[in-house]
């Protein structure tokens, strides 16, 4: 027995934990790896400052060569990309796939098919399902189903609170370990500031971001559209901008106080953008997003109120708000674009405006709307627009798609000059509640490679002879 000085007792918190493998976040159906040679497309990856017309070879689902005069190996599909643009495929961290519980509106298969058609290679599904994703059991069931059905890699969000009731916390540590990508009660706000604060503190053991639907129901109650001149004229109850901006200001302060990251979803108002801008200047750990429909449309689109496809939450607001969102996207206040793809059945949206459910689909039109209504108009540079369509997964731990040798193939081939009429050829989504129905848009997605597999080809985009 040695009689040296006693070994100091180390507190438990300092003891190194055994290394645990990082949980798998993304799940996709098994399929054959892409074997492709894309000839002569304009490669455009803003993160790598890549803008070059050249060839790309994908072997076994991985980008194996970029350059001219690449010889196509055996069993390789050759795609004529001349006149087309190849982007890293897009990422949407805010979609509703309605599984489980509402699969008549959308399911994992149709929703990921719609995403692939829009040029997306990754999506994060929200948790406001039935039952909500507030337990490891539901999460793992979804992951297993995605491994069967998902055309593109899907990650799943878990709820912040049990049952999304805004009171008790869900098992955040277990859910994070099981591969949840984000905590979110999206659909409903976390009204109680005390609950939000505790959620932020506790989730440090989980290490994920809290994504928040920012709405004060006491201000928005009874409203179906933006509170303004249009709602006053129509006699439809209004949702004032302060119902969003007041909560954003509150939550930014709480995040700053706790030093934990929060992400604010679907911004719609100038005051909200300003609140986030000020919070970021103070160094608060806040990020936020905006949707294509909020960037493209205003409350004037509600028209005579007979079409509930213009009803969503938060609502379309004024031109001044739209300009503020564009400015926010340009100066970095708004971190990325996310669709908040929210399918509803036709008969549900056929109800009178005030009765119909909130929400519009957006995956299949996202890039075309951004390109047509913002890039072609000169409001956004193509490089910035594309970057904001791709970078949305990073804060949630998803790997960013890149066009570089050695990267897994996550690509979308787009004909920027071709036009299409929204909805004319039907929808990949089960639902058709789009606020762009009937519009003629530029930019047609021809092909999407997601997670190394060809996930989508446009109907008219023929497979060419193997060389």
């Amino acid at each position: 027995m040695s009689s040296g000085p006693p070994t100091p007792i180390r507190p438990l918190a300092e003891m190194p934990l055994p290394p645990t493998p990082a949980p798998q976040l993304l799940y996709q159906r098994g399929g054959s790896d892409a074997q492709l040679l894309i000839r002569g497309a304009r490669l455009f990856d803003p993160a790598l400052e890549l803008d070059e017309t050249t060839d790309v070879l994908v072997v076994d689902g991985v980008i194996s060569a970029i350059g001219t005069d690449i010889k196509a190996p055996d069993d390789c599909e050759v795609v004529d990309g001349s006149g087309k643009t190849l982007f890293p495929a897009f990422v949407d961290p805010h979609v509703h796939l309605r599984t489980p519980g509402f699969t008549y509106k959308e399911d994992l298969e149709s929703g990921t098919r719609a995403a692939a058609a829009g040029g997306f290679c990754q999506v994060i599904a929200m948790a406001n399902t039935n039952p909500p994703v507030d337990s490891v059991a539901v999460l793992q069931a979804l992951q297993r189903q995605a491994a069967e059905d998902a055309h593109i890699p899907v990650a799943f969000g878990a709820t912040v609170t049990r049952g999304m009731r805004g009171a008790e916390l869900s098992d955040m540590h277990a859910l994070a370990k099981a591969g949840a990508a984000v905590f979110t009660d999206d659909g409903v706000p976390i009204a109680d500031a005390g609950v939000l604060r505790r959620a932020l503190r506790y989730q440090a053991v989980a290490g994920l971001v809290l994504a928040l639907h920012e709405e004060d129901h006491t201000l928005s109650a009874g409203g179906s559209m933006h509170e303004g001149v249009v709602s006053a004229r129509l006699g439809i109850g209004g949702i004032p901008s302060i119902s969003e901006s007041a909560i954003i200001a509150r939550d930014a302060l709480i995040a700053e106080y706790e030093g934990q990251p929060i992400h604010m979803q679907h911004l719609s108002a100038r005051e909200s953008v300003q609140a986030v801008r000020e919070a970021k200047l103070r160094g608060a750990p806040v990020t936020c997003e905006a949707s294509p429909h909020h960037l493209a449309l205003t409350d004037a689109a509600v028209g005579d109120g007979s079409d509930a496809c213009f009803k969503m939450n938060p609502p379309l607001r004024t031109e001044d708000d739209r300009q503020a969102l564009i400015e926010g996207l340009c100066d970095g206040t708004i971190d990325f674009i996310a669709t908040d793809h929210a399918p509803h059945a036709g008969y549900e949206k056929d109800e009178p405006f005030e009765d119909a459910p909130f929400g519009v689909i957006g995956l299949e039109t996202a890039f075309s709307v951004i390109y047509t209504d913002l890039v072609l108009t000169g409001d956004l540079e193509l490089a910035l627009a594309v970057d904001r369509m791709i970078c949305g997964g990073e804060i949630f731990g998803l790997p960013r798609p890149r066009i570089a040798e050695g990267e897994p193939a996550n690509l979308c081939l787009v004909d920027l000059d071709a036009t299409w009429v929204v909805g004319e050829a039907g929808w990949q989504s089960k639902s058709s509640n789009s606020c762009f129905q009937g519009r003629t848009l530029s930019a047609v997605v021809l092909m999407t490679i997601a997670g190394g597999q060809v996930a989508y080809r446009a109907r008219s985009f023929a497979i060419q002879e193997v060389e």
Partner: protein
Amino acid sequence: MRNLLEIEGLSREQIERFLARAESLASITGSEKKKLPTLSGRTVVNLFLEASTRTSTSFDLAAKRLSADIISVRSDGSSVEKGESLKDTVQTLTAYEPAAIVVRSPHVASAQMVANWTNAAVINAGDGKHEHPTQALLDAYTLRNRLGPLDGLNVWIVGDILHSRVARSNILAFQQLGADVTVCGPPTLVPREFAELGCEVRYSLAGSEHADVIYVLRLQRERMTQGHLPSMGEYISQYQINARRLGANQLLMHPGPVNRGVELADDVVDAPNSLITQQVQAGVVVRMAVFYELLSTGNVDDGEQMKVATVELTR
């Protein structure tokens, strides 16, 4: 014009045409309330998905005086109670090939939606808080009968403007006919955006003594429980129109039903300068005019049609 969905978008000429037709019908049918064969053999559907006494009975009578066959569908007692959608209800009723569908609904734009689903002429009898065009027409008709053209008239609309389809329609109609409109009520019930519709916005009755017409809206008691108003007493003390506030030279109007003792004191409802009864009476002939204008197939000059009708009546 195929439908009458709203006053918005109607020109002064179009409004005056309805009023002129109402006058002509009033003189033809006379005090004996003679029937006209205008809609004989044709079907009118009255679809009332919201409570109504005045409007529904008025449309009923108007269609009958034009010899139409009438189908009345109300929410209670119909499959709407079973949850049948508006669209399915309309498609069912369309099977009867109605010439016109009159729609009242608690939802904005319902009449427009119905018009999208049917070839029948659609008349909006009140869609949520949006518009009540035939109310505005009968109010304009009543006022014109009493005072002549409305140009330069000073009209105050007093009460719960926010929730009032009558206010929205009447502001547009009175302005189109040349009147100046002021809306007045508690700040929580008068949206500031109404100033952008071209009317004055006031939160107190001060100045209303200069109005030619005071048009009072019904105040629902629920507005207290919903937190828009602190109490009935606060509303009454500031906004109730009573004999003290209503000048002998001012005309009083109200779309009904009246909450006696709330927005109107008992003593003014039946005062000689109240036009409330005349408004109800005007309702039938104005709605006959709407049916007539939308449905009569006359390529014939109006004068001749009037003559034909008179001949039929005297035979």
